[in-house]
């Protein structure tokens, strides 16, 4: 569920729950959200801060930090590289040189003409283990986590796949019981 759809479902839930302060602006907000959603669906440029080749390396590293498995989406599926590209083009622009240098360095370390992305997962892990204490790796690890789990409007967490991976649900309303341990207590209510 996109942020905008989520926002709309929250607004509807607000009104349904009797939140008087929501009702007045609801129609106006709904129109604005519908327009924004429409804009968002239009395909844009693939990458802004990163070249296509740099983006492939970033995607490969992020996919080793949070790899996918059967039934469990990873950084690639959640489009983490799109978050990182957007961040490097905007509020994290100061870190772009760190990224460019880190990517170049890994491509050099790969010691094959096709670079880091052509290595097997196990080979990539070996190289990453050597750099895991570097500022570059610390930055990309942090950014991968944010891109995986932040609100989708930041550019990652596509289709809320990061949240699905955790078992986190973003919903306007829940009802008890919430978890296994409170089932009995809340059944008595």
């Amino acid at each position, binding site marked *: 569920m996109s*942020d905008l759809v*989520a*926002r709309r479902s*929250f*607004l509807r*839930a*607000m009104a349904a*729950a*009797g*939140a*008087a*302060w*929501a009702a*007045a*602006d*609801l129609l106006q*907000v709904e129109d604005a959200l519908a327009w924004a959603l429409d804009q968002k669906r239009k395909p844009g440029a693939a990458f802004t801060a990163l070249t296509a080749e740099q983006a492939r390396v970033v995607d490969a590293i992020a996919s*080793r*930090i*949070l*790899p*996918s*498995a059967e039934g*469990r989406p*990873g950084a690639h599926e959640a489009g983490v590289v799109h978050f990182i590209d957007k961040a490097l083009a905007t*509020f994290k622009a100061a870190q772009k040189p760190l990224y460019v240098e880190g990517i170049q360095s890994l491509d050099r370390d790969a010691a094959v003409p096709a670079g880091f992305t052509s290595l097997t997962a196990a080979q990539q*892990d070996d190289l*990453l283990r050597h750099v*895991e204490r570097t500022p570059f790796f610390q930055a990309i*690890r*942090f950014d991968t*986590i*944010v891109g*995986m*789990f*932040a*609100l989708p*409007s*930041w550019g990652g967490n596509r289709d809320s796949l*990061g*949240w699905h*991976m*955790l*078992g*986190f*649900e*973003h*919903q*306007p*309303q*829940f009802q*008890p019981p*919430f*978890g*296994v*341990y*409170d089932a*009995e*207590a*809340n059944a008595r209510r």
Partner: protein
Amino acid sequence: MLSPRAGRRFSPSDLVDFVIVGSGAAGGILAKELSVAGCSVVVLEQGPRLTPADFDHDEFGTMYQMKLANNPVTQPHSFRASVSDTARQTMAVIYGRLVGGSNAHFTGNFWRLRPIDFNEASVLGGVPGAALVDWPITYAELEPYYTKAEWELGVSGAPGPFDAPRSRPYPMPPLPVKSSGVLMEKGARALGLHPQPTPMAINSQPYNGRPPCQHCGFCLFFMCEYGAKSTSMAVMLPLAEATGRCEIRPGSYVARVETNDAGRATGVTYFDGKKRLQLQRAKAVVLCANGAETPRLLLNSSSSRFPDGLANSSGAVGKHLMFNTYFGVNAQFDQPLNEFKSVQNTRMVQDFYETDPKRGFYGGGAIDARFDRYPISFALTGLPPGTAAWGEDFAKTLSHQFTRSMFFGTHGTSLPVETNSISIDPSLKDAWGLPCMRVTYYDHPDDLKCAEFLAARASEIAQAAGAIKTWPERVLPQTLTVHLLGTCRMGNDAKASVIDRFHRTHDVPNLFICDGSSMVTSSRGQPTETISALAFRAGEHIAAFARRGEI
């Protein structure tokens, strides 16, 4: 409700009865109390005015980019652990920067103090290295205002075995228990302790036209879309505006409290949204800007008559800063708890509230069962030491543990230490050219011992609850806080305190202060209900002063 269209508009040149600086827990209540009492009121708030349609659940923006808090770029501050250190620019203090203040996105914990909190110094004697003193008021004097806060705002709870006496029950029953609460009950009972529902300023049923909690899970650091959280933003400010005598003016960054040759406050100078200086004239000024900004404003309001800062003849402005200690124990369980649903916490233990001389240190506190980590924070800090930091094991562990994890939070005392303080940084200036605050803080040794003690008790509870893995947070001297207490403390002695028992400053007869800075002791980690009760009490007295022409 809470529409920018509501309320009266004043011109800065209008001489209003009161200008209130800050719109949070205390400012909102004072705005309501004073305007209902018939006074004209302008509330100056540095942050923007948001409506529910603006609220979102943006963990990254809110908790990692501080989009609703004091901005570290435009309004930086510095920190040092000791007066002999050079302070460096950092983020040591976080507060809400929006109409409604920090109170708009607080967790909702609403604990009263107990009688002992008000006279602990005389009961225990002093504590070396601390300036522990009694409050000039007693629990009995504040009790009617705790009750008023609970009923006017709306609190869900049930009395616990150690609670202070109350004149009226809670207005609403407790919120539904969460898995973390059930587990705390199990662990605590097994140890002979007394778990109780956590009182929360969140509706468990419809209350005064506002809906009950919908259990979406976004209380801590977020505003409630439903208006189910009983805050100044949702409850008090709309009532203030409905009087037709109160204007809430967002985007107003206060620079100075102005005074005249007679030593009386004449109004407040502030930068409007276009960074133009304005003077709001007022018969009296009320500072509710929080325990960091209130002393900074006083110190920045010095003049030839008040060379050491306004209302600071005692030298106590900015001193005795108290953070409260907050640490805890992480725990993993076998089955899903799904702690991301509903309010932050539903059960707590207050058996260790009072100081016990046998423990060998001053202080006490409480332990609550809670969810503290939204997805990003969980991935960054929610797994035990030794877990892989990346790769297949990291991803697998995150995926398995997120729904199975919880946190036993410990909330403890901070002693008032004279050198722990808000002062003015000698060189740092904000984007408006005003001198910035410098925070000096190092926990008193007893505070850290108390925090260690509470963490050990929390570990025992977690284990008795059947946790398959527990690991405590390391107790270290704190360098970051959201609780800002004690910096303009209340007292009868004008040489040792900033305000009197009615919140009037000792030095300036028409300058009042009510916020966390008024507190004489730190509470056991949840000060909001006390700040609210103080504000209701202050509002009643200040309105009476206004009626009698004593402002």
